[in-house]
């Protein structure tokens, strides 16, 4: 049983690493969990490149789940990743065909959990990609001002210096205008759906 325990330890180490954006955790994830998933995909009419894509998508699903708040691993990490990959690959294969194609010998509970995780991930991914693309679509100097202030957490004084504003009030006005524009762009896209 000591082996099983160390597995669980490795799993939680990886999860913590991913929450903190640790590259070592990603590498470990690749080394331990990529080969069986790649094998599964290659054995099911997939190429090595497609296996890479599916695995990365799977890791992003895991990432969404971990950063979604209180993530509790209900099974082994391998099981979770495997079933998510399987769902994703199945979806990839049945693209344009029946949307829900269920493998009859699938473990129902496991695949349901995987499906939920995928749907949650897709919702989060869509919103965040939209935020990102809206920010990137703003143009300079707005993008950098907002990026420095909100994401990097720099102070307004630093930003003033960087952009050469004469006083902090000017910078604040500029930041406010940029934020309003960002919201406008974001909502325009959201409402156009």
């Amino acid at each position: 049983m000591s082996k099983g325990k160390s597995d669980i330890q490795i799993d939680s180490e990886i999860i913590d690493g991913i929450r903190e954006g640790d590259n070592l955790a990603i590498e470990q994830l690749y080394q331990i969990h990529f080969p069986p998933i790649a094998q599964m995909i290659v054995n099911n009419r997939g190429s090595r490149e497609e296996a890479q894509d599916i695995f990365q998508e799977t890791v992003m699903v895991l990432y969404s789940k971990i950063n979604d708040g209180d993530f509790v691993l209900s099974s082994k990490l391998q099981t979770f990743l495997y079933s998510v990959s399987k769902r994703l690959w199945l979806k990839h294969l049945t693209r344009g065909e029946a949307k829900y194609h269920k493998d009859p010998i699938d473990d129902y509970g496991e695949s349901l959990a995987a499906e939920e995780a995928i749907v949650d991930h897709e919702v989060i991914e869509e919103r965040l990609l939209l935020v990102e693309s809206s920010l990137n679509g703003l143009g300079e100097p707005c993008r950098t001002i907002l990026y420095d202030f909100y994401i990097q957490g720099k102070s307004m004084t630093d930003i003033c210096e960087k952009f050469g504003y004469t006083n902090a009030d000017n910078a604040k006005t500029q930041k406010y205008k940029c934020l309003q524009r960002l919201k406008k762009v974001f909502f325009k896209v959201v409402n156009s759906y």
Partner: protein
Amino acid sequence: MKDLNEQDFLDWADAYLREELSEEEKRQFEAYCEANLVHKELLEWHRTFVGDLKKADARANFKRDLIRIGQGYGKSYQPKSTTKVISLWDKLKLNAAVAAAIAIVSVFSTLWLTGYYKNLKKTTSDYSALRRDMNTVKRNVNAQNAAIQNIHNTKDNAKETMHYGATGFMITKNGYVVTNYHVITGADSVHLQNHKGESFKANIVFTNPEKDLAILHINDSTFKSIKSIPYTFKKQDSDMGEDVYTIGFPRDEAVYGQGYLSSSTGYAGDTLAYQISIPVNPGNSGGPLLDKEGNVIGIISGKQKGLDGAAFAIKTKALMETLNSIPADSLNGKNVVLNNKNLLHNLSRTDQIKKLQDYIYIVKVY
């Protein structure tokens, strides 16, 4: 502190969210939000939006790292991907081998079962051997009558033997006769009959299926050794255009046929035969082919189907080779000594034939 404008509120909210405010100021801000519900809502919204901005950036960074690591990992694993085709072959190797084996077996067994191989030989050769089926029709009718009469008899009647006729001629004065191998194949007994009607029993001394030659020896008490044979054997090849003739038994009487040597090779380029232009028919097989001086230059063997005037004769050279290859113990001390004195040399054709025909036999095979 009543209505702040949106910009000022958001500045304040940013400071609050970034926890730059003192405890006192925090309480003030929270109190303000409680009092101003519009701004409270704006705060919540702003908090989510800023959170999303941070999350989006963190996610983008994570994804970039993931892809970078994945590429590095994919490179180190590259060799494995090249084995895909080989692994597919490994998987299907057994199936392919079994399928191929079944295909081969079924093709050849089908061909064999449908008699393709038997027909192949028949259909590809338009060479026709010239032995004569004697009384074919009569024999068939007799066999049928017998079958009808014996339809209730359980015991099988003795099978009617095959009966063929052809020609043969004497090669030595002590009773050796040559004919075609195809004439005597499957023979129970062989009888030779000359034009006077005398019949002698003969043994098969030697056969050469490749050259289609058979050497018989007359083994009959009524047969007396003759003084000499009037013709000789010409061992060299004869030339194209030479006048040749033959005597054979396409029916029960001797029939004379005359023509010329039309090619120095036989059927399908056979160098041990001539092509001759003489009307020959079933029964002519084994007859001597003579030139105008009365030398035997060949033995009539067959003709080509569907082609007029293309008959074939085996060269004397092939006969000599066959005679030389006879094992000594097959001869029972009676050596094959060929005649070398030509008695036909200066005779007219009719006189030649008169002298010749005593030595030409109808070969009857039972």
